[in-house]
């Protein structure tokens, strides 16, 4: 997509005042939905998203169960008031696709063979969206899965990078997503160093792509730090290490 106006000003500030290698503020609160087995509320810039996990639990209908591993169900859904223009509550094709890619970004981290004939349900509810909601949703879901005590090989952290004014920037916001040159969301398992989500909207030459990917992974690692500290805070409070 070719941009119609400049999105970075002369002093290097983006539409929300950030510089090109700066992430928006990220806050995560664990255990916010009392009924869920695991949950997290993430605020990623203006994104406000709740991820809740129920599982492992019984599969309904029974014939959908798999004999040797767990079934994962994932729903990404936006509340009608979450976007600039009010959105109809019915699921859209965009939400359907995003639900699928999110499921596929989380499954590699889950040890599904530990829960044969059961289901793990991951629900991501966007209360307010502002660009990068799928990445924020994945990051919250990963925290919710850990909170639910589901066996995972690694956490999953997500962040997008992209091209704005022909420069590679980290963590695309809503305006940059709509008007910028490219948007590339990435999800990453930080310890195993594997990519589990990769999409691209826009145009990047091979150099730009490599830089974007590096930037996105760098963003994922920053998100990982916040995922870790939010979990540590809920479970261990201020104690950094177990006292003997």
């Amino acid at each position, binding site marked *: 997509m070719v941009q119609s106006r400049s999105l970075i000003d002369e002093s290097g500030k983006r539409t929300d005042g950030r510089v090109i290698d700066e992430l928006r503020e990220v806050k995560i609160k664990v255990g916010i939905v009392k009924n869920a*087995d*695991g949950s997290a509320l993430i605020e990623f810039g203006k994104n406000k998203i709740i991820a809740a996990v129920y*599982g*492992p*639990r*019984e599969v309904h209908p029974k014939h959908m169960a798999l*004999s*040797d591993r767990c079934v994962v169900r994932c729903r990404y859904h936006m509340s009608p008031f979450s976007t600039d223009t009010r959105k109809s509550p019915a699921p859209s094709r965009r939400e359907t696709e995003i639900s699928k890619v999110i499921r596929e970004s989380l499954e590699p*981290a889950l*040890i599904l*063979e*530990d*829960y*044969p*004939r*059961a*289901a793990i349900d991951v629900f991501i509810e966007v209360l307010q969206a502002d660009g990068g909601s799928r990445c924020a949703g994945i990051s919250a879901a990963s925290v919710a899965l*850990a*909170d*639910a*005590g*589901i*066996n*995972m*090989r*690694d*956490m999953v952290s997500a962040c997008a990078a992209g091209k704005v004014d022909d420069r590679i920037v980290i963590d695309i916001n809503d305006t940059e997503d709509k008007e910028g040159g490219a948007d590339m969301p990435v999800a990453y*398992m*930080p*310890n*195993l160093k*594997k990519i589990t989500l990769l999409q691209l909207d826009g145009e990047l030459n091979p150099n730009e792509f490599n830089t974007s990917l590096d930037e996105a992974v760098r963003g994922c690692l920053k998100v990982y730090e916040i*995922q*870790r500290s939010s*979990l*540590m805070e809920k*479970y*261990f409070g201020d*104690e*950094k*290490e*177990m*006292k*003997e």
Partner: protein
Amino acid sequence: MQEVKRKYVIPGDIVAEGNLRPLVNVFKNGNSIVATRIGITESNNDGAKVIPLSGIYFPRANDIVVGKILDHSSLSWSVDINSCFAAHLPAQDIFGRDFSPAHDDMGRQLSTGDVIVARIAIFDRTRDPILTIQDKDLGKIPTGELIKISPTRVPRLIGKRGSMIQTIEQASSTRITIGQNGIIVVSGKDKDGITLAINAIHIVEVEAHTSNLTQRIRQLLNVPESEIESDDTQTSEASDTTINQDEINSNSNDKEMGMINSNGTK
């Protein structure tokens, strides 16, 4: 004296390096043992594991569970054991081999909503858990206060050789039935005793992983020093009860690591 190291971990964190045996809630990745859950690590010469701090109850054969009757078919009751699988109590368990729906009335023995304490007689990867109430002290629980705690805290609540729970029972004059699935029934004649017991149980649940829990419980219950074995770790009961988990939970140790093991071993 074995050296026991403990760390707080989240999934993906390294528990230990070296040629240790992966026990529960961990998997081996090259030369490292990696945590699969949030919890406290324990590693010594026997191996490395994570004692989890969250997670629903996953059934194990021989566990004692407290369940709720949901319904019954002509051959068995379906029982909610607060897990990802519904359990079944065969009618034959109560009526005997020559049970017949025609003249044995299941509804008279156990009806929807009844609470039972049972043992998981059979459970494996291919089917729902089958219960039995034939052993001593099993069966319907007619009265008492029912509370739920995270199943991960049950070993701590029981304590070394039952010391924690027995102390609470004695100090509050109550009888406490604990299911491995986190469902607990407190019965007794004295309302205040029951309240005391429930408070103690809640403190254990919230502070299971901290180091001077025993002392705090002692203070709450007004119990002298000698009576509770100082058990400032969550580990021992957990060790005893989690060995069977190797078979069902965390098969992570062997199976699918070929997928991520970069050195090609499986």
